[in-house]
Every structure is written in structure tokens, then in C-alpha cells.
């Protein structure tokens, strides 16, 4: 080989190697950047840790003490076959005031009333358990009605609420719990549908003492807003935030306790909603990011199909989806809704339901489920609930899934007789109605449809599903929702 041939071969090799490697690098980088994002799954805040966990912790906030008007009851649901011990520490505005050891029976529930441990207007509780497999939720009740919400398994520096109302006659209280050992400082920002972004000075630099609670009455400095999203940012420390919403009066009103979302999610699911004639169902979609969000709304009907809707939510703003205005959503028929944000922009979605019937618990606010899971735990309907109206299961995947509903009994999860395994089509809601008055009728013995609402339920599916358990007495489906926990 002479120099000329050698030179040509060498230059060819060098150019080919450099170019080829560059192309491969480009392809790999593109593939990594454009990798299909995994399906959204339930965020850790509402996920029950594994039974074998060394310990687990929950933070409950939003309820009041005995003197606060909406006293809370903490419900511990043990999914394991062994009893779990732990400690409940109750905090007030001034800090930790009382602790109580607890033992949660195997496959059973335990209720703890914080007001019995400490006194104060606003209470919060830290539940630390010597193991996993236990879900902790809380319920509140007052003359307006009752509400249940999950406790949070984590603290976070930011929390978001998609909706709240300070319209005349409504009350909106934001509770902040700092379980850490250093003081937290919090800014509260409001995004209203009519006045835009609000940062009332009184809500800036709110101090939340270490181990203590702070409560912010949003009506004081942001009254008169029919709908507003709330953004809670801890400048220092890590907290848990919840909103207690009061609607109207006792004759026609409601009470809602909502834990915030610690992070926006690309998917929110509501397994069952019903647009009752005369009432209203409104979904509030909050985009806290600095980029506009394109949200696809998939509707699942029990019969037939409906084309998805599309929403564009500008950056740092909210958009409302009023179901009554959507012709493709039939009235008085249950439907499932899934909000999927395209791209990487996460959103927060909440649902406001108003019943046409004048009664307590005629209006309510509830969060959707941020993603699906294959196993769900739903605690029993807490007092003063009187029973379950329905249990809905919605398939979030593209293929049919098989769903099995079991009741948590002393002997372990026991499939509910008569329900068996059901196949749920894609995006379709499966609504399992409990016999009316089953709970009040005191049905007992064995796991039957009557167990829905009476006992904790374990829903197992062959694919990711979302579930929703509505409780009685309510004026309309979706007003009062029993929280569900994803099981590992």
C-alpha cells in the first residue's frame, strides 16, 4: 500500500468513525429524551407502604379540636395479618401537646380522635407505626356534613389545591402542619378565576413552628372568590397542607376536607361522576407550571363511547370543565373521567359537586386519584357516614381488566360474594352499587355486597385502575368520597 492509498483509507476511517459515532450519539440522546414516559402511578402520598416495612409514618392535618367545629377522627386500617403498634403525636398551633401509643389489630381498623389527646382549635397528628401495611385516613364532620380524606405519607415543600371557594357563605381554611424539628416559613399564593393571581401580605411568610400547626383563614383576605386555586410554598422546611372547605348553611351545604397535591401529576382519574339534573359537576384543572398544559379528557361511559375532550390550561392558571355544558356527557348517567396532561407539564385536578337536593352534604369537593394502581384499599365509610352509595372502578389502560373486590376481614381479604370477578372495559366505569340501607340494616356475616362501605375493601385488578367509594348520606354522587390508598 502506498502513501496515497494509505492516506485515503485513513481519512475515510477517521471521518467515518467520527461521523458514525456522532450519529449514534444523536440517536441515543434523542431516544433518551423522547423515551415514552411510564404510565402515571399513584403518588407516594397516598400509597400504603409494604407490610414488611421497618416503619411508616403519616401526617394528618385539616381537622379541628373539639372546640373547632369540625373535629377529626383518624382511621388506621391495617392490611396485614399482624397487629401493628405505633405512636400518635398530636400537635397544635403551639407545638406538640400529646402522644398516644396505638395498636392496630390485624386486618382491622382503629379510630383515634386527636381531640381526646390534645386540645386546641386546630389539630394535626403524626402517626408513626412500627411497620408497614397500614393506611391512615381522617374524617371530619360538622352540621354542614362530613368529609373524609387521606392523611399524607410525606411532607413536601410545595402543595397545590385546584379549587376552593370563598364566595359569600362559604368558609375556606388552610391548615399547615410542620412535623419537622425546625420552623417552616410558608408563602400562600392564590389564583382566582376573577381576580387573577393574589398574594395577600398576610399570607406571606407564615410561620409554622417545628412540630406545630398553622391555620390560615383564606376568607379573611381573599373573600368573594367563587373559585380559586391555592399554591403553598415552604420557603424553609417541609410541611403538609390541607384545606377545609365549608359550603353554605346546614340546610343546604357541605363540608370538604382535602389534602393538597405535593406535586403536579400528568394524570388524574375520577372513577365515577354523575351529572345530576339540577345539580352541577365541575372539574377544576390547575396548571401551576410556567408552561401551558394541553390536557386530554377521556370520558368513560357505562354504555357507548364518547370522544375525548381537549383543554388548554395556560401557565399558572386554572380552567373549569362544567359537565352540564358538555353535550357528549349524558345526564344522570355515571361516567369516568381521566385527565391526561400531554408532555411533561403536570396539573392538579379537583371536582366540585353540588346536589340539586337541599340537605347536608349537598356540596363537596374532592381530589381525583393521581394515577392508577393494581391494588387499592378503601377504608370503611367513617361515621357519621351511614353507608356506601356505590363503589366505582374505572380501567385506566387500553385493555380490559379483571377486577376482584374483597372485604378485609379478620380472616384476611375475602372476595365479596355475588360480585365475583368483573371485567371492565377500557375507560369504562364499573359501578357496584351497595344495597340501599345495607349498613343501617346491620347486615352481617360473610363478605357480601352489603360489606361495601361497612368493611375496608381491597380492590385487585389485572391492570391499573382508579376507584371511588361514595358514602351516604349525600345529596348526589361524588359529594362525599371515601379516600382510597394504593397498595404496594
Amino acid at each position, binding site marked *: *500500500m502506498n502513501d496515497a492509498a*494509505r492516506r485515503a483509507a485513513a481519512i475515510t476511517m477517521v471521518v467515518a468513525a467520527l461521523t458514525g459515532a456522532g450519529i449514534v450519539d444523536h440517536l441515543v440522546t434523542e431516544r433518551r429524551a423522547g423515551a415514552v414516559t411510564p404510565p402515571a402511578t399513584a403518588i407516594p402520598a397516598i400509597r400504603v407502604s409494604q407490610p414488611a416495612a421497618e416503619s411508616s*409514618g403519616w401526617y394528618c392535618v385539616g381537622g379541628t379540636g373539639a372546640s373547632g367545629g369540625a373535629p377529626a377522627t383518624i382511621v388506621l386500617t391495617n392490611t396485614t395479618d399482624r397487629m401493628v403498634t405505633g405512636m400518635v403525636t398530636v400537635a397544635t398551633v403551639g407545638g406538640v401537646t400529646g402522644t398516644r401509643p396505638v395498636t392496630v389489630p390485624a386486618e382491622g381498623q382503629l379510630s383515634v380522635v386527636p381531640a381526646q389527646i390534645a386540645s386546641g382549635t386546630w389539630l394535626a397528628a403524626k402517626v*408513626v407505626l412500627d411497620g408497614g401495611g397500614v393506611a391512615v385516613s381522617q374524617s371530619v364532620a360538622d352540621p354542614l356534613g362530613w368529609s373524609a380524606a387521606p392523611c399524607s405519607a410525606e411532607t413536601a415543600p410545595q402543595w397545590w389545591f385546584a379549587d376552593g371557594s370563598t364566595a359569600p357563605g362559604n368558609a375556606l381554611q388552610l391548615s399547615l402542619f410542620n412535623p419537622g424539628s425546625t420552623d417552616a416559613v410558608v408563602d400562600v399564593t392564590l389564583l382566582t378565576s376573577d381576580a387573577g393571581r393574589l398574594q395577600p401580605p398576610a399570607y406571606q411568610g407564615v410561620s409554622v413552628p417545628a412540630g406545630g400547626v398553622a391555620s390560615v383563614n383564606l376568607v379573611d383576605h381573599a373573600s368573594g372568590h367563587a373559585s380559586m386555586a391555592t399554591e403553598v410554598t415552604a420557603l424553609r422546611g417541609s410541611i403538609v397542607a390541607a384545606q377545609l372547605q365549608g359550603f353554605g348553611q346546614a340546610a343546604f351545604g357541605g363540608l370538604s376536607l382535602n389534602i393538597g397535591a405535593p406535586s403536579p401529576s400528568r394524570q388524574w382519574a375520577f372513577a365515577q361522576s354523575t351529572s345530576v339534573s339540577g345539580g352541577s359537576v365541575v372539574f377544576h384543572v390547575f396548571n401551576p407550571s410556567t408552561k401551558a398544559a394541553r390536557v386530554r379528557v377521556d370520558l368513560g361511559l357505562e354504555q357507548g363511547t364518547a370522544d375525548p375532550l381537549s383543554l388548554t390550561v395556560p401557565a399558572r392558571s386554572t380552567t373549569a370543565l362544567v359537565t352540564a355544558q358538555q353535550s357528549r356527557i349524558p345526564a344522570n348517567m355515571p361516567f369516568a373521567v381521566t385527565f391526561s396532561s400531554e408532555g411533561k407539564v403536570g396539573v392538579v385536578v379537583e371536582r366540585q359537586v353540588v346536589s340539586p337536593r337541599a340537605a347536608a352534604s349537598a356540596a363537596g369537593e374532592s381530589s381525583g386519584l393521581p394515577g392508577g394502581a393494581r391494588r387499592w384499599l378503601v377504608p370503611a365509610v367513617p361515621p357519621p357516614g351511614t353507608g356506601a352509595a356505590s363503589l366505582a372502578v374505572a380501567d385506566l389502560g387500553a385493555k380490559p381488566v379483571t377486577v376482584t373486590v374483597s372485604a378485609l376481614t379478620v380472616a384476611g381479604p375475602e372476595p365479596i360474594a355475588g360480585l365475583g370477578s368483573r371485567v371492565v372495559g377500557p375507560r369504562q366505569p364499573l359501578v357496584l352499587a351497595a344495597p340501599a340501607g345495607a349498613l343501617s340494616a346491620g347486615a352481617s356475616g360473610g363478605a357480601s355486597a352489603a360489606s361495601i362501605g361497612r368493611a375496608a375493601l381491597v380492590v385487585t385488578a389485572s391492570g391499573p385502575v382508579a376507584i371511588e367509594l361514595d358514602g351516604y348520606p349525600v345529596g348526589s354522587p361524588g359529594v362525599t368520597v371515601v379516600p382510597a390508598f394504593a397498595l404496594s
Partner: protein
Amino acid sequence: METMVPPVVLVLVTCDPGPAFDETLCALAAQDYPELSVLVLDAGSALDPTHRVAAALPGAYVRRLGENRGFGSSANEALSMVEGAAYLLLCHDDVAPDPNALHLLVEEAYRSNAGIVAPKVVSWDDPDRLLHVGMVVDKGGAVVDRVQTGEIDHGQHDSVRDVFFAPGGFMLVRADLFTELGGFDSLVFGMGEDLDLCWRAQLAGARVVVAPAARVRHLEQLASGRRPVPACISPGEGTGVTLQGLQRRHELHAALKAYGPLHLVRVVPQIVVLAWAEVIVAIATGNRQRATTVLHAWRWNLARLGNLRTQRAAVASSRRLSDAEVRRLQVHGSARLTAYIRRTVAHGLSAHLDAEVMRPDPPKRRESDAMRVAAWVAVAIVVLFGSWQLLTGAFPVMGQIVPIPTWSTMLHDFVSGWTPVGGGAVQPGPPALGFLGVAGMVLFGSVGLLQKVVVLGCIPVGALGMARAASSLRSRRATLAAVVVYLAVPLAYDSLATGRWDGLLAYAAGPWLLVCLNRASGLEPFAPGTASALSRRVLILGVVQALGASMAPSLLVLAPVFGLGLAVGTGLADGRNGWRAVKRIVVTVAGSSAVALALLAPWSIALLAGRGRWIALGGPVPSPGSAPGWGTLLRLGIGPIGDTPLAWAFLVAAALPLVIGGRWRLKWAIRMWSVAIVALLAAWSAGHGWLGSLAVPVPVLLAPAAAGLALAVGLGVSAFESDLSAYRFGWRQGAALVAVVAVIVGSLPVLTAAVGGRWGVAPSGYEEAVSWMSHASPSPFGVLWLGDPRVIPGGSWPIQPGLSYGVSEDGLPGVTGLWPGSSSGQAPVLAADVGLARGDQTVRLGRLLARNGVRYVVVAESLTPAVPGYDSPVVSDPPADLLVALQRQTDLRHVIGQGGYDVYANTAPGIRSFVSPTPPLGARWIEPAAEVAAWVVALGLLWAPLRRRRDRPAVPLELVPELSAA
């Protein structure tokens, strides 16, 4: 048939010719020049050579002169004996010209209109080795050869050019010029008559050129010591005059005779000063003979001032050119002084005195000596200025640049076989502890200075290695270019700025490994060498590898990367002809790796036998998402300095030898590019996690690429000097210009970074961020570090790609953590605890960590703590779930959450003591003793040949310049 060539008379001077004379006669007889007459002048040989001449050259005329009056005086007989010749070919009796040598000389004489033409003179025994290709002098008449001792003839000097004088062994002189000059100086009996003649010829306006196409073998019996200095060569002075003495006095004589009055006034004082300085130094260092030689030169010339005046008048009468015009062909400065300084620097004072060899550079090189020195000084200034803040201050704690314990602690840990890694582990001590311990002791315990030496010292060590590697290019400009480019690639400074000590070590070791492998390959221009030479190369390479790998185990992959690149490149460049070289490369790499592992045993054995062998070798796997892209790798810029498009320029410069190179330069350019591409591909694969568990750090793998590209640039300069002239003017000359601009442009990022004085290194590291811990907690306490392995200070173990953990005692991690060894102590337990927290398996991580003495958890998110608006360090976020999991823990208090790191204090009760008890000193003495013994054996094997070489008698100065022989 009538010939049309000018008649030439060959004047052959003999004096007791040796056995080679017959070969000389045969070679002369074989000349293909048709108009050649031979005149043999026998200068007093004991035996009449006539019959020997007649046997080979029947037509030759032999004249016996009766006495040896020296070559010049004897040759002058031709002035009266020869008529009608156009040229005289003056030659010694120990030369053997190629058959066409005379033909080519005459051709060149006509073509160049030269008065004197010299051939390329090669060794008698080894015609591949050059002796002379024309010669030059400095202003004082000191002779400088254009070739280096033993230089192989690769055609690098095969261009016709003007020289100051032609060596006298075989010299074609125009007959009328010889007559006009009056022949040789009759006072010069030997060693310098050719210089004198040519100098006068230059002044007379005649060109002196060398025609390398004509080749002559020369035995140089007198200069090589084969023939004693005859007593008659220096009448009245006995045999006490050495060849060096003759040379020095004749050089001085020529200078005193040739310069005009103005130049004489200017030059003589300089010569006097240098001579006296030389005498003083020679006396001071006990070299009396040298002092005598210098003094003799002056005494001899001063004793002949009368003759000198007469001869100066004769020169003046024939002068046609001024001294200034003639001095264009002289080298600047003092060749002797420069050689003295160079040898003193290289070998020390004593080595210089006994073995001074004045083989200064060829004229054009010498002309650029000042520029080269200035360039070297400028490079040194840039590097020093760029490092001054680091040299005068302390290093921040970041990455692998972490505090070094006291030398006694390191030696204790090395000898005891106990390291505080992971809370304490008993294992064979890393040899690096021994090396650093001894180094710290030598530096009187100054660990701060030790850290500067082992970190910043990597840059000059790498540059020296590149100078060594590029010295094979046989071009000082090429060497300078290669070194400048190697210093200007951002790799070293980016490694420094990102706290990658292993990158710096690879930068330092890379060129040295390349030197060993290049030489072991036996590829042109390196001699293939014997099996024992190859064994020696293997041993040297093994020692270099072991030294590097002891500090950074990942450096063990460098030799295989270099070897693979060289093998692939050799396959491309040489095809099947390179198979033998490839085998030598493979054997060298395999053998040297085995030697390195043996030298590092038992530490290396424990390391590789452990389950985490690949992690110990390459370190934890960083996050693939933050892997540098192909463009970043091509720029060799993995940090802030190389993060600019200007860094692409070196690729352009390195492409030059592929475009204009020829012969071995093109082949080596292919090999160097092959090395670079193999290293770049390996770095890309490692960065993207394609090498599996063997996550060799990218900076380490980029070192071979940097070395390969820098050497390619050097090859480009060498090709520019040697090969470009073979092309007609065109785009290739433009390519050379582009390459020069590319080198300048590519150097700008580093030059700019030098202004800051700290190469982009952050002003402060984690030392201040965690200093409060020791005040807040009783010692000893543990600190658990979590984050990307690239930002965790000290060593770490992997949890997952992009997340590692390290453990330190009482705050900052130390340098001992950089060598994780075979045992990681209790550290894995801590990692398991963190896994529980991340897996939502516990909210009481503090309680778990308390069992192992951990009081603080630090999550490093950036290389150094960030100071907003002032410092923006490299950021590498840990997995998102880590902070969420830590926030969830009920017994970890979030103490600090800004500035690029988070600190959690453990609030769990009952935190235990962190450190395991230290075993007694010498509990595992066998292992360190074995390591020391292995090094002693290896160094002994290396030292023995060096000592034999040193004990060999040095070549006396007077034998080397080889001005004229016989």
C-alpha cells in the same frame, strides 16, 4: 565517444591506510563518472601503498610525500600537480562512496553553481546512521553538526541546501576556487582544515552546498580513535595534543583569520569571555584537560600572530562577501554554551563534565532556538500563572481532591493493613498509602505541599511525557507543538475544575505509557529491538502502570486502550506487514499489566478477587442521563474550560499529518488517530453505561485521546518540515496554515482560563460546609454522603447509576477513601438503610443509621457548595425520590437545604461510635512487606541496565564533532 562532462581529479591522501583502504579503492574505482583521474598522495606511510592502489585503480598516479604533513598540506600538492581539471575531489583513505556519488556531486555543483559540494556522510559499519549532512559553526567557530549522534537516515535531510562548511572526508571543490584560495591552510594539520577552507570560500563568494543524494560511507579512523594522532601532525608539540585540542585551536584560528576588523572586535571579546568561563568551570569541576585544551588553543594562536596577520591579508584580498552575509549560515549564540547548559540541566553537573557532547542542532533549528526557548518559557509562565492561586492557597474539598492525612497516619495504615474506609476495614493496604506516606515524610510532613505536588504536578509530568513521546519525531518544533497542544487541551484543567484526580493522573501517565508502547512496537522510526529489550519495555511499562494504578485503579485500562488503538492503527497503516508489531504491542500490554498487578499485589489481588472488582477498578457508575455527548468528548472538554466551540480546533490541527504526511509520519498519524478514536469511543461507551459495571471515568479514557491528538499535531509539524516540500504549492500549504491557526484558536480557552489563576476551581469546597459538625457532635461520628459519584467528595460506592454513597469520619472524607479496596466495612449496611427509606420501608432512617454511628446525612447535589451570584459549580442532581424519602424520615432533621447540598442531622437517640477499633501496628505486616519487596525487585531489574550503561566509558568530547578524520 567524446564525453561532455567536466574533468575531475580525485585527490586521495593516504597515511598508513588500514584494511578498509582496499574497499575505499574499490569504491572509487566503481565511480560511474567518466572523466575521473586519480591522484594518490601518500603522506609518509610506512608501507608503500602503490601496489594496493594499482590493483584497484590501474590508472591512478601515486606520489609519495615522504612525511605526514597533515591532510591539508598534503592535499595542497595538487595545486602544483594538477592542471586542466574543473573539479578536485578531495578525499580521505577511509571513505567508500556510492558508485554515483561523484556524478551527483558534479551535477549539483553545476546546478547550484556551488564552489564546494559535500555528500551525505554515513557510518561505515551502519550506512543507515548519519554522520554528517553538511556542518555549521557558531560565531566563535565552534562546529555544530546538523545531525544527532546515531541519527537514523530516514531521508529527513535529503534536500539540497547551503551549509557553512563541508566535512573534509569527501569534498568536491571547484579547482579554480581551490587555487584562488591557495588550498588548505598549511598551519592546520588536521581537525579543522575543511572549516577553514570553506569559510574562506564563503567569503570569496562561493556557495558551499550539501547534496544528500550522493552518499559516502566514512570510517573516520582518526576521529573514532581507530587511528592514533600521529606525532608529526603537530610538529614540536609531541603527542600531548589531543584531537580536542587540535579542533579548538583550529576553530579559533579560522575565526580569527576570517572575520573582518569590525566583526573581530565584536566577536573576539565574546569568545574570550566564554573561554575563560569554560576554563573556570573546568577547573572548578576538576576537568584539567579541558582547561588545558582551551588555554592551548589561545596560546597556539597567539604564538602565530605573525602568520595570522599574513593570512588575514590574504583573506581580505579574496573577500567578496561581508561577514554579515556569511554569518547568515552560522548558528546564533554560543553552541558550546548552549550544549553545556542543556547537558547540565539534563544530566547534572558531573554528568556534563565527563560526557559533554557537542552535537548542537542543525542550523535552521538553531536559528529558532531563541524562539523555542521563549515558547517553553511562555508555556511555563502560562501554566504557573494559571495555577498561582492554587499554588499559594489551599485546595477546596471537592470530588477526588480531598484532605490528605499525615504521613505517619498513612504509613501506619499501610503497614497495619487497616484503613478507615467505611468506618474501618482490615485489608491489604493500598500501595498509594505507602507512596504518599513516604512522599509526605520527604516533604517534612507538609501534606498541603504534598497535595499540590500530586495534583498540580500531574500537568508538568504529562507535558514532560509528551515531550518524551514527541522526541521520536526528530523535530524540536514538532516536540514543542505536541507539548503545547497537550498542555492546551482542556482535559487536565477540566479534570482539576471538576475534582477528578484520576483524570489528572491519567493525563500525567498517558504520554509515558504511549512512549513505552511506541518503542515496544519496534515500528519505524524505532528499532525493533531484541527480546531482552522488549522485556525491559514490558517492565518499564508495568512499573508506570503500577504507579498510576496505585493512585487511581482505573488507570489500569489505559495501556489496553493505547494498545488497542495502536494495534488497530498499525493494521490500517501497515496491513499484514504490521502483524509482527501488533504482536509486540499485545505482548507488551499483557505483560506490563501482569507486572503492574504483581507490583500492586496483594492489594490488587484482593481488589480483583472481591465481588465489587469492577467498581473498585472503575468507580461507581454515574447517571447515564448526564453522560457527555460525542461533541463534548471530541472537544476533550468535560468541564467549564472545554465547554466552548473553540476547543474543536485541535481536531483540525491534528488532521494535518493525515493530509500532508508521508512515510512513517503518515503511518504514525494513522496510529495516533486510531488511539484517539478508540479512546473516545471507550469514553462515550463508559459514559452511557455501555461497559456495564466497568464504569471507567470519562476523564481517564480521554487521556489517551488527548495524547494521541497532541502527538498527531506534532507529526503534522514534522510532516510540514519534511514532507510538505515534496508537494507543489497548493491547498496543502493552505492546510498547514489552517492547522497553525487551529492550534492558536484551540489554545484560547486554556489561555483565558489561566487568567483566573485557578483553572476554574471553585473558591471553596465542602470544608466550610461541614466544618460545624465537629463542633456540634462528639467525635468520632460518621457522615453519610449521598449523591452522584461525580460530586461526592472522596470515594464512594454505588447504589444505582447516578447515586452513590460515601462515609466519612468527623466531617470531611479523606484521601484514603479513594481506594475502596476489597472491603467496604460497614458501609453496605448504611446503603441498605437508605434503600429502605427510598423504598418507603421506613420513616426512621435515623434510628437505623444510629446503629452505625452516622450523625449526619449529606446529599451532595453539586461539586462544591454554590454561592449564588459568585460561584456556579457543576450540578448533578440525585434521584428525585432521594430527597423525598429523606424528608419523610421522622428522625432526620433537615439542617441545611440550600447551596447545592442538603444536610440532615440524625435525631434518633443512642447513636453509637462510628469507628471500628484500630488493629495494632504490623498486625498484617506480611502484605506490605510483600508489596515493598516486589517494588524493590522491579526497580532493581530496571536499575541494573542503567548502571551498566552509566559505567560504560564516556566518549571523549574531541571524538564527537567529527570534523575531519584520518
